[in-house]
């Protein structure tokens, strides 16, 4: 019953009359997808990352460079970005977790890695520096460019479903149980024979690989990327906000968070259109959520239904 309802709501944009309404739905689903990617590491694994844009940007550049330099079909960019994002995640994870970084220190080191990638992409000839990369306009399904926003929306929905499937699996499977054990108490998990570094690195790689695919979709939709679009702090913060507001460590959290974020954005923009006003409201929402609903909005739902849900703070 629940799934029919969810499927029904997700299908509504396909029959919406205007492209701009479909666009809002697509952007919401896109935020939910990226939030879900963050959630896999940050929620289920308790790995609070401040630099998830490093994965998004790596994916965006992978897709764009393969296509413009080597003439590779952009659909191939998706698995390629997954690989590159996964490798970047594995590298950052292995280095940080081996050094024993956690909590705030881990958050700061991810931020620094994103900054290193931003500066590199801004200076290297290979990534065309500050000019960024323009992807040539050639609309066709084969070329992963759609005139109709509904097609983009469909692609994003599939990605969201995949990431959410991973999240569901984490709530049920052995790997998820290990990750939860590490999140709740590292020493106890280690005593039970869980390889902490490996488990956390694996979660960051999976999260990074998925987020990198989002970068490819971004490139194919807007046909332009540059260092700050790819690796800028705003992207990292948005991914984190969506998951935290909705409920980190829950399957539905990022979806709820993305809907709230976009409703807040559109409503506040309707009243005060000044740039900065809408993101300021998100910041306030985040503070309120941390203060009164540490489990996020999904936590409220779980409490109402009387089931234990949501991640406790690591």
């Amino acid at each position, binding site marked *: 019953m629940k799934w029919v309802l969810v499927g029904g709501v997700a299908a509504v944009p396909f029959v919406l009359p205007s492209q701009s309404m479909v666009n809002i739905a697509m952007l919401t689903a896109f935020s939910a997808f990226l939030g879900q990617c963050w959630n896999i590491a940050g929620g289920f694994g308790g790995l609070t990352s401040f630099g998830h844009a490093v994965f998004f940007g790596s994916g965006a550049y992978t897709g764009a460079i393969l296509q413009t330099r080597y003439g590779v079909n952009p659909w191939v960019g998706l698995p390629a970005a997954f690989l590159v994002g996964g490798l970047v995640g594995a590298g950052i994870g292995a*280095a940080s977790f081996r*050094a024993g970084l956690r909590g705030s220190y881990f958050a700061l080191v991810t931020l620094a890695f994103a900054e290193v990638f931003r500066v590199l992409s801004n200076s290297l000839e290979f990534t065309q520096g500050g000019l960024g990369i323009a992807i040539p306009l050639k609309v066709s399904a084969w070329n992963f460019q759609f005139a109709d926003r509904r097609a983009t929306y469909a692609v994003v929905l599939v990605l969201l479903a995949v990431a959410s499937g991973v999240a569901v699996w984490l709530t049920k499977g052995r790997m998820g149980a290990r990750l939860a054990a590490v999140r709740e108490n590292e020493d106890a998990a280690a005593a039970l024979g869980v390889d902490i570094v490996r488990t956390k690195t694996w979660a960051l790689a999976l999260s990074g690989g998925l987020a990198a695919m989002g970068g490819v979709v971004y490139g194919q939709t807007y046909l332009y990327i540059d260092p700050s679009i790819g690796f800028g702090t705003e992207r990292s913060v948005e991914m*984190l906000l969506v998951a935290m507001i909705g409920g980190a460590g829950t399957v539905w959290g990022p979806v709820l968070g993305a809907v709230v974020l976009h409703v807040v954005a559109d409503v506040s923009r309707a009243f005060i259109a000044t740039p900065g006003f809408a*993101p*300021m409201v*998100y910041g306030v929402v*985040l503070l309120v959520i*941390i*203060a009164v609903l540490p489990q996020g909005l999904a936590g409220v739902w779980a409490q109402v239904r009387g089931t234990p849900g949501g991640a406790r703070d690591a």
Partner: protein
Amino acid sequence: MLEIYTAALINGLLIGGVYALVALGLTLIYGVLHIVNFAHGSLLMVAMFAAWVLAEKAGVSPYAALPVVACGMFAVGWALYRYVIGRVSRGEDRAILLATLGVSVVLDNLFLAIFGGDTRQIEGDLTFAMWEVGPLLLAVPKVIAFGVSLVLAGGLWAFMARTDMGRAIRAVAKEPEGARLMGIRPERVFALAYGIGIGCLGAAGCLLLPSFFVSPHVGSVFVLVAFTIVVLGGMGSFPGAVVGGLLIGVTESLGGLVLGESLGPIGISLVFIAVLLLRPTGLFGAAR
């Protein structure tokens, strides 16, 4: 050739003095409250805007405004801890980190909404004034900033080491429960220490303004610099913050010269990552 490097080195040291002041505030907050104040860059941005508004709208020189802005920022910091960060976070590491992130998102965007995204600078003779020392040209505002920063750093050290208030702060930093039994209220001291840390930013904002531009995004530039210094010097260490500030100032300046404008900033992030991965206690830090 040598002169270019000497000039870059001295320039780096001068800027490093102000960085040290910014980092002192951060390291004080970490040392006492054990929180990572992610809003530090944004609060520096607020201080710079305060100095800019006073200079442009009221014609007050940033140096004359320094005591006012520093006290104002102390009040802002005190209130922010007392009414927002302390309440919201309930003492949990992740909640505090996210609360300070939330504060920085709110501040950055509030100032973007009020002032727009343009970069601003104060206009005046001071901005371009130079001192000739032998073959070197030194920017006057940077020399003043360096001197005042070091004096303030010394003052802060004396305050912490010699006064009862400073002793109370150090007591709470070491043993909050023991301090409570001695009649010190840790919550008050936390708000006070946070206020002093932010007050340092008020002074730093005024010292930076004559030679730096300000925009709502400037905080994100400084936040990583400040954290790098604090981590390099050792979280919570005062001498570490000063030495780290000077080292990072020089790293930035020489990095820009050797690697060029666009690749130069990578030096700071690399130092930060390397210290965290290889020697997380920093140069002067005790083992955590």
